[in-house]
């Protein structure tokens, strides 16, 4: 019974990891950029939410009304004025610049908020649960999972049905030609990053009501999201959901063996998938 319970909790946890992964996958899909500071921006979003909640008394989820646009604007600016300058044939600059951003964010958060761990309060929903047969499911994990599925669905539909999604795909296929037909690729890249940051904002708030965070919680979130992306298969949004679930379930089962194995189990499964199916479980057909 414990095992089934662990698997179910792991699947729900996977939803959160899929949210971490979706933002990464999105920008990689559009501009082949990997944001090493992704996890740190998730944590930054959590702190911004915290400040908003403390100063306005808003509910944690209501704070998203402000956190999402703030983060999206930040993403747009960072891409437009910093990261666009790093794109090109040389792979090192984007990696090193986002790596530098990660360190700067961590230490700035440390300077401003110190090392104390924090948590956002979302009220009674935190402890609420529903019983499904013999298993008790937390309402918050269920909600997180539903939000993940909903957001991925929305992104997927937007990608294939909207004008801006069309521009994302065209730019991803061939940026030079997109530019020649009138697509301002610098703006498109910045919009993709803004969208990624909107997802980051949601992920950050959900993370912060679920678990403790501190200025150095970012890297682990980047790693879980990254593992989900690679396991799911590059460029596939639904793959990131599957990858997130694989990592979530692995961690939940690992934790059953020993708390020390929780994270380790996820890493080992990641390396196993890399060894057996290097292109991930759901590689995009090209």
């Amino acid at each position, binding site marked *: 019974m414990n095992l089934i319970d662990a698997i179910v909790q792991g699947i729900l946890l996977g939803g959160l990891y899929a949210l971490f992964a979706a933002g990464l996958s999105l920008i990689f899909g559009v501009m082949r950029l990997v944001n090493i500071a992704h996890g740190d921006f998730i944590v930054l979003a959590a702190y911004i939410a915290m400040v908003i909640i403390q100063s306005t008394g808003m509910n944690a989820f209501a704070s998203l009304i402000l956190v999402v646009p703030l983060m999206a604007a930040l993403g747009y600016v960072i891409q437009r004025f910093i990261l666009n300058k790093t794109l090109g044939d040389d792979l090192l600059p984007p990696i090193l*610049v986002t*790596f530098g951003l990660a360190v700067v964010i961590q230490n700035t958060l440390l*300077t401003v908020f110190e090392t104390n761990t924090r948590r956002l309060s979302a009220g009674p929903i935190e402890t609420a649960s529903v019983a499904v047969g013999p298993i008790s499911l937390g309402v918050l994990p269920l909600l997180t999972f539903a939000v993940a599925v909903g957001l991925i669905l929305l992104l997927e539909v937007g990608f294939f049905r909207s004008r801006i999604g069309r521009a994302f795909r065209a730019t991803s296929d061939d940026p030079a030609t997109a530019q020649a037909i009138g697509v301002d690729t610098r703006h498109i890249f910045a919009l993709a990053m803004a969208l990624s940051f909107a997802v980051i904002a949601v992920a950050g708030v959900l993370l912060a009501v679920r678990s403790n965070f501190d200025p150095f919680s970012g890297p682990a979130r980047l790693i879980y999201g990254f593992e989900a992306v690679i396991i799911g298969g590059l460029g596939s949004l639904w793959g990131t959901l599957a990858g997130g679930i694989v990592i979530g379930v692995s961690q939940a089962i690992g934790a059953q063996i020993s708390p020390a194995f929780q994270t*380790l189990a996820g890493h080992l499964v990641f390396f196993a998938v890399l060894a057996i199916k290097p292109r991930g479980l759901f590689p995009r057909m090209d």
Partner: protein
Amino acid sequence: MTQRLSKPALRVGLGLIVVAVIFASAPLWAGRADLRLIGEFMSFLALAVLWNLLAGYAGLMSVGQQAFVGLGGYMLFIGVIFLGLNPLVAIPLAIVAGAVAGAIFAPLLFRLEGAYFAIGTWVAAETIALIFSAIPTLGAGAGMSLPVDAVRAIADSRDGREAVVYWLLVAFGLGTVAFAFALIRSKPGLSLMALRDNALAAGSVGVDIWKARFWTYVAVAGASGGIGAVIFLQKLRISPTSAFSLTDWTVVIIFIVVIGGIGRLEGAIIGTILYFVLRELLIDFGAVYMIVLGIAAILTMLWSRSGIWGGVEKRFGWSLLPTRRTRH
């Protein structure tokens, strides 16, 4: 060929010997605190040169070098405490362990490209760190100390031990510079550079290139293991947090190389000197100096990708360690 290459090689060789003699004689004229500082400088220099080989020359952007430093440190403690080895004998063991770990992870990590490779190396480091922190015999999360008897095996007096550790660090520091210089001027080294400039753009990696990258990665992993062993021989204590510190063994090292000049041997040297100066100045400000380093590295990548040494080269045409490399 020999005619063309031997002159600068000879000059650099002689220069290194002079530098080595000066540094090696330091225990005769420098105090304990100064020795420690120079020793620490040498360990950072070695790690910076090695990371520069990986990222600047082989195009392997690793953010997981702490895996091998930490592993080397732990192998020293395991060798001394559980196998009863003399610490000086345990250092080669640490080198072998680092190289073997590198050889195990490389085939998996090489399946990831660019930034994903970078994060992959990070996961590898986390994995090794988690394994060590889960082993109760090794003190789990708390770590362990080197017993006094074992340390005495190096030298009886404290000054003697400090001197030996110092010499080891100098050997690693200058040794990696000499090794990197020789490697870059060798044929495999030249193909490594060609590979970096092309494979990065083309994204296609052939068999020979795979091999060149593999051996570079393994050699750097081994050397990092050795340096880790000496660093923790000096510290006498190890824990998963200190051994596998991302900040100490990778973040700072990356910033050193980026600011000094990536893909330039002199860059690692200048960067390390600058780092130590900056650290002495800003040490009281804690996190601020990491923020300053981070911003400096970002600005370097945005405005002058070849770093400080690249600027010096362009402006004055200087080259301390001529490797006949031209860029752009």
